[in-house]
């Protein structure tokens, strides 16, 4: 069933969308039927800028396993990167 459950993360940064780079302030995160990925359910993230009206988005649809892999790698990259920069 299509759910209406969306987790909103406040983020700060940029994303490259259909019109080039844009600032983003929100990541809409949900686990539901994807639009494109050939999966029953996908972890979807839409990066948007609500302050600018959220007319464009940068979207990904990931399998649950690959989403967890991504979370793990993000944490590892942050830890190792921050450690390296502190040492520098």
């Amino acid at each position, binding site marked *: *069933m*299509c759910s*209406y459950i969306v987790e909103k993360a406040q983020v700060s940064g940029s994303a490259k969308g259909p019109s080039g780079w844009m600032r983003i302030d929100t990541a*809409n995160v949900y686990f*539901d*039927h*994807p*639009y494109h990925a*050939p999966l*029953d359910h996908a972890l979807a993230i839409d990066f948007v800028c609500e302050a600018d009206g959220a007319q464009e988005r940068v979207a990904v649809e990931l399998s649950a396993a690959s989403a967890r892999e991504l979370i793990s790698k993000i944490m590892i990259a942050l830890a190792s990167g921050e450690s390296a920069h502190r040492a520098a």
Partner: protein
Amino acid sequence: MSYDSLTAETVKFRGHNGDEGEGYYARPTRAGKFPGIVVIHHLPGWDEWITEVVRKFAHHGYTAISPHLYFRNGPGSPDDVGARVRAAGGVADDQVVGDVKGAIAYLRAQSNASGKIGVIGFCSGGRHAYLVGCKLNTEVDAIVDCWGGNVIVDDPKALNDKRPVAPIDLTESLRAPLIGIFGNDDENPNADQVNRTEAALKKMGKSYEFHRYDGAGHAFFNTARAAYRPEQAADGWRKTFAFLRKNLGA
């Protein structure tokens, strides 16, 4: 022996509050009078598979229209607009019912209309089809609910300003015959919810038939998904067309 020709196009129709939106419309090309079907898309949006379903109905001798339920949230591609609607918590039930009413009016206004109208919906659209059957009960002659979840609402927190009432609570208003198609591995609606929906229909003396499929979960008609189950889907379509022939003709 040959296949019938069909014509498909994107058309303008008047939806809820008279707002002008787009619908995907297909019809048999030959002259004649045909029953009409409104095809209600699922939450991710007005996608390629739903246009295939619209053409399938024209192939089988129906006129069919799928209103783009998110047309107010454009511009943009249907997937981007769908994401925008999801982030806003979906569309309001009253607006969907108004848009379906407008789509029915579009079908009735065509010179090829027989006057009979059915509605079919998938997933959240299945719930909408049930809702339309209750709220537009003088306008529809057959209802097809394909795995509509949240017809029964077990968690009151799922009710809100946009979806204030569980469709099951409107069942008394249902007049047209209803066919329900469900996968036994589905989690929403799960087997217990399907049984409780059937019990409500039976208790109120409604005309209905439910078909449950082993080895199938949610969205098993959808050839674009891993959930597609060809054997179960083929049987489900056969039962759906038999039901529509009986109640609408064609």
